[in-house]
């Protein structure tokens, strides 16, 4: 994408910091990069409608979502800790809110053999795959990943990144693109995923651009601060 599809603006206190953001997002995969407690997750919660401060606005594809509750936004949110429904099976979780056949998704994410397994029997990586598959099954207009790959083995992270890129290509060729906004403080993940990087610290965007430029800027800042 070249045209901005998302405009988010916020000037509100969150915890001990103030989140001051006014950004237009245009990339297929935008990475919010920065240390813990810098406001990245709050920004995702703002977009998902889970945090609704007074002085904030969200425009997605020209539609003002600011006053809409989370269930009317078509924005899927995958938290760092997978919030899977413990009373449902893997299949039941992925089917919750699904607007597309779920069997191909279970296959894609390697969950077909676990379809009828209980949630408490899953490993951390399996649970996170269920969480991401469940989010994609709702056919959202935007996918938010809040440190969703944290704690996963490198191979699994790479595998999931490839799967998500393939899904993005399929959605784009079907005329309903699926942009992704992900939060991380992992440099390797930033390089692997990002089309566009926003470096956030203390609630402000300090730098923006491709991964190489933004991380080089961070390195320069670090050295000048020594």
């Amino acid at each position: 994408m070249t045209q901005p599809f998302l405009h988010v603006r916020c000037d509100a206190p969150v915890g001990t910091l103030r989140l001051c953001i006014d950004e237009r997002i245009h990339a297929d995969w935008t990475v919010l990069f920065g240390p813990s407690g810098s406001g990245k997750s709050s920004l995702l919660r703002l977009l998902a409608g889970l945090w609704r401060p007074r002085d904030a606005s969200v425009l997605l594809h020209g539609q003002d979502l600011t006053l809409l509750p989370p269930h009317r936004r078509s924005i899927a949110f995958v938290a760092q800790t997978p919030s899977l429904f413990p009373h449902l099976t893997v299949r039941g979780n992925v089917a919750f809110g699904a607007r597309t056949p779920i069997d191909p998704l279970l296959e894609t994410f390697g969950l077909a053999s676990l379809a009828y397994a209980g949630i408490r029997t899953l490993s951390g990586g399996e649970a996170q795959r269920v969480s991401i598959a469940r989010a994609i099954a709702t056919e959202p207009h935007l996918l938010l990943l809040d440190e969703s790959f944290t704690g996963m083995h490198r191979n699994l992270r790479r595998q999931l990144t490839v799967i998500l890129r393939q899904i993005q290509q399929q959605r784009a060729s079907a005329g309903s693109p699926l942009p992704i906004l992900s939060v991380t403080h992992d440099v390797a993940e930033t390089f692997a995923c990002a089309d566009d990087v926003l470096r956030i610290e203390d609630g402000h965007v300090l730098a923006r651009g491709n991964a190489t430029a933004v991380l080089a800027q961070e390195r320069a800042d670090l050295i000048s601060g020594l």
Partner: protein
Amino acid sequence: MDTDALLLTLRLAATTTALLLLAAIPLAAVLAYATTRWRLLLEALVALPLVLPPTVLGFYLLVGFSPLTALGRTASTLFGHQLVFSFAGLVVGSVLYSLPFAVQPLTAGLRSVDPRLLEAAATLGAGPLRRLLRVALPLAKSSLLASAVLTFTHTVGEFGVALMVGGSIPGVTRTLSISLYDLVENAQFAEARHIALLLLGFSTVALVALYTAPLFPRGERRAS
């Protein structure tokens, strides 16, 4: 054994439990999730029957449903007979008097559901009703069961409100506890002992089952 009283008591408890569960689910959801301050007032009103003498509630129902009041006349038109000294009046009294026993355990259960699960459901497109029915209630099902057992048991043992609103009409409003009272008043202690033992046994078994249920959790399976 007064079998009419036994059957009437079971019918009253079943009807009250069914009606109260229907009312308790939306009420408990409001108490658990609403952010308005009016919620606290509603919570206090729901808890009122816990401290209110049953005779006070019975007295107001007796007065309120008398044929002299608009409410009483409306109820008479609706049911085809006056509510006081009838089974329907007994049900209304029981529903009001057992309200906290149905609402409070369920409210606590809904509040204990992990809010992150409800947030996840919301971002998956589930509105408030679907979140309640598909996520919160299934996860609070033990609280729902507790509400049902406590309501049923409390209604079986109800005395003050039943006596004030229903009196003691055999086969119509005479419940087991009223039958027990009548028997003692007439010095028929042998039969009174049977009823007292039955009520004691029923309440004990119901509460022991409720409190020991968590000791027998259901297992989960994993597909190979």
